């Protein structure tokens, strides 16, 4: 059968990088074709080319046998190719109807918008594919799962029959993921074809009809789920044998370092985000917090690190009451914090590595004396850390904006781990990093644990939490549903908890 979509020899260069190198892929009608690759492999670039956001330097695209010239997303839509972006492309202050019809509006005879007709069409589509939405509600009021449905409806509204889903499961609960896949199955049954971009091995094995692995901008191979296994896929993805499990000794736990009692925190829109949470972290252990993104982890971490104040409850750190302490105090007591978004919170990108390394200690001796910065001391210190933490940069005066994600994260780790710390909060410490950097960061975290540091690890990657933690707390809708022993629990148990299903036996 002729493929509905064919990419031939797509090449795309960015200054200094070859993002796509002679990539050829095809998609058959009624197929779910997974595009697997780690962060930075070039998957998204490829899809943006297909969608007309980038122009390829070489190569051709064929849709149903016809050569496709895409210079804008509009051309792609007209050819029947639609994309659900990783970050949703929805206007928050518009209604579902307005978002869906934007760009292809229905008009009344007088030239005014026909919102009613569009809403009816949306209801039709939503019935046909089991995509329940309320056309009149505003996007900003909808949970992400529903927002994703709106994105899919947007494509169906435009009669797209080739759908590209870019990392669609990143923001969903395991339950919502299952729902999404049943929607995908339904779409495929009705004749649509789907390209599904991900870096999650498990999803690929379970839901894809065919898998293509991309590494360093090149196609490494195409295979079928039944002919491969996760370990093989992983090594295809990374290019070498990797340890799926990190080696670590059993924890030697000491006294509690952090105690949290009945903590309640509001988010920026004054809604309860952390709801009566209590737990403790002991010296020498890693407590992992699992949960789908947006269940209060961000607010919990911000509160524990003194960036926001709780509305109720108590936080004790090393015996001191730090419930209302600010970030500086918490830090001075001995807390290190690897923030969730390194570019937004963790680094001052235009600053040099040197200046970023004193971001927490700029006012302390020996880096400053009588409020005067001691440039020589700082530079020596920075040179030392660059060497010790293997930060790949010409020198310590290089701006951090010029570093790769992995090296940026190393700057943060170098800064945080070079102080005498007793408590480490690591929030999404490996998000968006390549496998080499992930391994490096994981080792460092375990090293800190073995030195007797209490570690709180927050991650939405279940695998990461399972590998590193000694105990796992699962957060759902602002609450900690259970704290389980990492050695005794199973993925299924955690998965259910992440979806809010609480079992009596835990």
């Amino acid at each position, binding site marked *: 059968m002729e493929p509905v979509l064919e990419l031939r020899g797509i090449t795309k260069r*960015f*200054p*200094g*990088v070859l*993002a796509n190198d002679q990539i050829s892929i095809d998609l058959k009608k009624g197929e779910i074709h997974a595009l697997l690759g780690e*962060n*930075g492999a*070039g998957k*998204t*670039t490829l899809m943006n080319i297909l969608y007309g956001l980038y122009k390829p330097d070489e190569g051709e695209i064929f849709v149903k046998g016809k050569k496709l010239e895409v210079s804008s997303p509009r051309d792609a839509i007209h050819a029947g190719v639609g994309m659900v972006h990783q970050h949703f492309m929805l206007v*928050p202050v518009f209604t579902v109807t307005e978002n869906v019809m934007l760009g292809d509006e229905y008009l009344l005879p007088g030239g005014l918008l026909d919102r009613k007709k569009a809403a009816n069409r949306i209801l039709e589509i939503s019935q046909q594919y089991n995509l329940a939405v309320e056309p009149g509600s505003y996007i900003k009021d909808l949970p992400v799962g529903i927002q994703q449905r709106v994105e899919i409806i947007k494509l169906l509204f435009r009669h797209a029959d080739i759908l590209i889903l870019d990392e669609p499961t990143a923001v969903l609960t395991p339950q919502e993921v299952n729902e999404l896949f049943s929607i995908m199955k339904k779409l495929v049954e009705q004749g649509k074809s789907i390209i599904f971009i991900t870096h999650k091995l498990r999803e690929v094995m379970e839901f894809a009809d065919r898998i293509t692995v991309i590494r360093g901008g090149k196609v490494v191979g195409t295979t079928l789920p039944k002919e491969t296994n996760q370990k093989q896929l992983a090594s295809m993805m990374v290019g070498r044998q990797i340890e799926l499990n990190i080696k670590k000794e059993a924890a030697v736990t000491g006294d509690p370092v952090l105690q949290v009692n009945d903590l309640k925190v509001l988010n*920026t*829109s004054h809604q309860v985000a952390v709801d009566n949470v209590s737990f403790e972290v002991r010296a020498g252990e890693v407590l992992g917090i699992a949960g789908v993104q947006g269940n209060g982890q961000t607010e919990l971490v911000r509160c524990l*690190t*003194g*960036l926001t104040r709780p509305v109720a409850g108590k936080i004790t750190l090393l015996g001191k009451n730090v419930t209302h302490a*600010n*970030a*500086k*105090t918490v*830090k001075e007591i001995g807390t290190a*914090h690897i*923030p969730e*978004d390194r*570019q*937004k*919170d*963790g*680094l*001052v*990108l*235009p*600053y040099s590595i040197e*200046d970023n390394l*004193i*971001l*927490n200690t*700029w*006012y302390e001796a020996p880096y*400053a004396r009588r*409020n*005067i*910065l001691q440039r020589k001391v700082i530079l020596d210190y920075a040179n030392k850390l660059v060497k010790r933490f293997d930060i790949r940069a*010409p020198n310590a005066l290089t701006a951090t904006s*010029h570093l*790769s*994600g992995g090296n*940026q994260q190393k700057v943060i780790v170098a800064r945080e781990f070079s102080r005498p710390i007793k408590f480490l909060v690591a929030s999404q410490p490996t998000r*968006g990093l390549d496998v080499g950097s992930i391994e490096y960061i994981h080792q460092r975290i375990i090293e800190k644990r073995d030195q007797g540091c209490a570690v709180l690890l927050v991650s939405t990657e279940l695998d990461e939490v399972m590998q590193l933690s000694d105990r796992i707390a699962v957060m759902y809708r602002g609450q900690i549903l259970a704290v389980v022993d990492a050695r005794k629990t199973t993925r299924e148990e955690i998965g259910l908890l992440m979806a809010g299903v609480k079992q009596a036996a835990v």
Partner: protein
Amino acid sequence: MTTSEQKQKKTGSFSIFIEEIRKNSLTVTILAIVSGLLVGGLIAAVTSENVYAAFGESFLAGIGAIFTVFWNTYKALFTGSVGVPADIIAAISSGSWDAINRSLAPFFESLVQATPYIFAGLAVALGFRVGLFNIGAEGQIFVGALATVWVATSLKGWPALVHVPLALLAGAAAGGFWGMIPGWLKAKTGAHEVINTIMMNYIAFRLSEYLLNGVLGDPNKATPISAPIEKSAWLPRLFPDPNRFHWGFFVALLMAFLVYWLLFKTTWGYELRTVGHNPNAARYAGMSITRSIVITMVLSGALAGLAGANEVLGVNHNLGVAFSSGYGFDSIALALLGNSHPLGVVLAALLFGFLRNGAIQMQLTAGIPIDIISVLQALILAFIAAPAIIRTIYRLKEPKPELETPAVETKKGK
């Protein structure tokens, strides 16, 4: 996304823009100035009746007339701002101090004109460094001048050594207070400082009209103008008349040095610059955003207030409602021209001072209204802010990106 986050994002994008401008090479800066001057000359030419008359005669005469206008304009600009070289040489060879003083008076007058620009330029540049857009220097100049004139007229019989610093301080304090309000509102409520400083400008104008028509006004005058200030509050002049060069210039230089020292040598400066580049990271590092923003706006307002105080104490010796002719807005151009760096600001302020002083001469001898310099400044600002225009005109190469290997996908994480 919440409103406060958006605000921060905007602050961020603003500092990125300032950062981009800072990468302008010296060539681009100089070409921007030259282009501004050329276009200004062109405007003078196309609005000159002589040129049209000459074109009426013949095309060549027209071209000649254009060159004449250019020549006269820039000659007037030069002699007005620096002096007549022949006169200066003659004066020096004659050895008469009085003659030397007279021949160099235009040069020193340019420094006098540059002085308020240094203060106001520093005010805006300091804000830029902390990611704040103080568009309200004009209003801060006014309230600074009001407070200064109050201290300088109401205290009588004080020694100059006390009276002058006190009057300067009053100006700085009032300006600082005027800057503090939008700063505090920004830090506490996220209200955009651009809008608030604009609003504060107009409140300051109304306030000065009110005060100069009332308590601060000279009852003997029909126009809203203050009484002349006490002699003891004058910023002392260094040379005899007509040379108005006064100590304010050195106060301005001292301020430039202090701002430089504060920003780049001290821990406070590190803190302020961090807040400017990335408020989120600053908060993460345990810095107080609120305090940094408020302090910056106070200092920025104080510097602008000093500009007003300087004009009252050093030049005018009284205060009328129209005393500041847009220093506050020009200083935005100036701060960008000077790369938001204190040294750059001083140089840019000197340029603007010489232009302004020269323009006065231009108005007298070449019949070109002084407002032409606002046009010049606007053009220079546009060229500085959009270096791509200059690069296109002069076919300069884009500066090479110094990136080694940009991480393509991680870049998307904003």
